[in-house]
C-alpha cells in the first residue's frame, strides 16, 4: 500500500525536485556566505521547512536578539498557511497518525500539490499526501545541505532556474481553473492580491490581500453558494 502510494506521489513532486534543489542550494550558499556552518541551514530546513521564512531567519540571526519580534515577523510572513489549513481541514480528515506530519509540512508546494492532485483510485490518500510532503522536505533539506557544503564548486549557470516555482503555481492555478465550475474565487484571489501588491508593495501585501479575500468571499457567500447549487 505504501509502495503504491509512493509510486503515485513521486511524479507529482518532480517539479519540486527541480525547484527545491535549486532554491535549497541557493539558501545553503547564502547561509555559507553569511558565515554559518552547514549545520544551520540543514537543521533550519528540517525544523522550519518554509523557504522564504528561512532566508528571513538568517537575517534575524545576524541582528540583535529579539525573540518577540522574531515570532511576530514569522507569523506575519507565514500567515498564508492559515488559509492552507482551512482548505485542508476536510482533506486531512481520516489520515490518522500521518496527520501531524502532514500539517507540519504544509508549505506552499505541499498545499498546492496535495490540494490539486487527483489521488488515483485504490491509492491511500493519507500515504499519498504523506509522500508528497516528505519528498518535498527531502528535496529542500538535501538542497540546503548541498548548497552549504559544496556551493562553491557549482559551475553551471543556474540564473533563472527558480522560475520553475512560478511555472508550477501558474500550472496549478490553471488546473484548478479548468476543474472549477465558476471562477469567482480564482479571479477574486488574483485581482485582490495584485491590487494589494500595487498598494502595499512586495514586503507588506500578503496580510492585506488575505483580509481583502476573506471579506470579499464572506460578502459573496450567498450568491456563491447559490451558484454552487445551480451547477452541481
Amino acid at each position: 500500500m505504501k509502495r503504491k502510494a509512493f509510486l503515485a506521489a513521486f511524479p507529482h513532486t518532480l517539479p519540486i525536485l527541480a525547484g527545491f534543489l535549486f532554491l535549497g542550494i541557493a539558501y545553503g550558499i547564502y547561509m555559507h556566505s553569511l558565515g554559518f556552518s552547514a549545520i544551520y541551514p540543514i537543521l533550519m530546513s528540517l525544523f522550519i521547512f518554509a523557504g522564504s521564512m528561512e532566508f528571513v531567519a538568517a537575517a534575524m540571526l545576524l541582528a540583535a536578539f529579539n525573540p518577540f519580534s522574531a515570532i511576530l515577523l514569522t507569523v506575519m510572513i507565514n500567515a498564508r498557511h492559515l488559509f492552507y489549513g482551512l482548505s485542508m481541514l476536510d482533506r486531512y480528515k481520516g489520515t490518522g497518525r500521518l496527520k501531524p506530519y502532514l500539517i507540519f509540512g504544509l508549505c506552499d508546494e505541499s498545499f498546492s500539490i496535495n490540494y490539486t492532485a487527483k489521488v488515483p483510485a485504490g491509492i491511500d490518500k493519507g500515504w499519498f499526501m504523506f509522500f508528497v510532503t516528505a519528498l518535498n522536505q527531502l528535496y529542500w533539506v538535501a538542497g540546503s545541505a548541498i548548497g552549504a557544503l559544496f556551493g562553491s564548486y557549482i559551475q553551471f549557470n543556474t540564473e533563472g532556474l527558480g522560475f520553475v516555482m512560478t511555472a508550477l503555481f501558474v500550472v496549478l492555478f490553471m488546473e484548478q481553473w479548468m476543474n472549477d465550475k465558476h471562477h469567482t474565487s480564482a479571479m477574486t484571489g488574483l485581482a485582490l492580491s495584485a491590487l494589494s501588491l500595487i498598494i502595499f508593495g512586495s514586503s507588506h501585501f500578503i496580510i492585506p490581500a488575505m483580509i481583502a479575500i476573506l471579506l470579499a468571499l464572506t460578502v459573496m457567500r450567498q450568491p456563491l453558494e447559490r451558484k454552487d447549487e445551480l451547477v452541481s
Partner: protein
Amino acid sequence: MTMTLTQQIITIAMVVFGTMATRFLPFLLFPANRTTPLYVQYLGRVLPPAVLGLLVIYCFKDVTFTAGTFGIPELIGVTVVAVLHLWKRNMMLSMAAGTVVYMVLVQAVFS
C-alpha cells in the same frame, strides 16, 4: 555574529514555533471530531482557488515592471507556460519549457 549560541537557538525556536502556529492553528480550532461551523466549511471550499491566485501574484512580487527589463522575461515565461498548458495540458512539459525559455532570456537576451 553578535548572538550567543543559546540566543540563536531561541531565535530559531521562535521561527519554528511561529511557522507551526500558522500551520496547526486551523486544525486546533476546528478538530476533526467536532462539526466544523458552516461558514468555515464554506471558506474551505471557496478559498483554494483564491489562494492559488495569491500564490501566482506572490511569485511576481519582486518583479519591477517600470524599470530594468520591465518584467518582460517573466511575462514571456508565463505566456509560454500558459499557452503550452492550454495546448498540451502536460504539467512537466509546460513547466520545463517555460523555465528553459526564461533562463535563456535572463542569461542571454536580457543580460
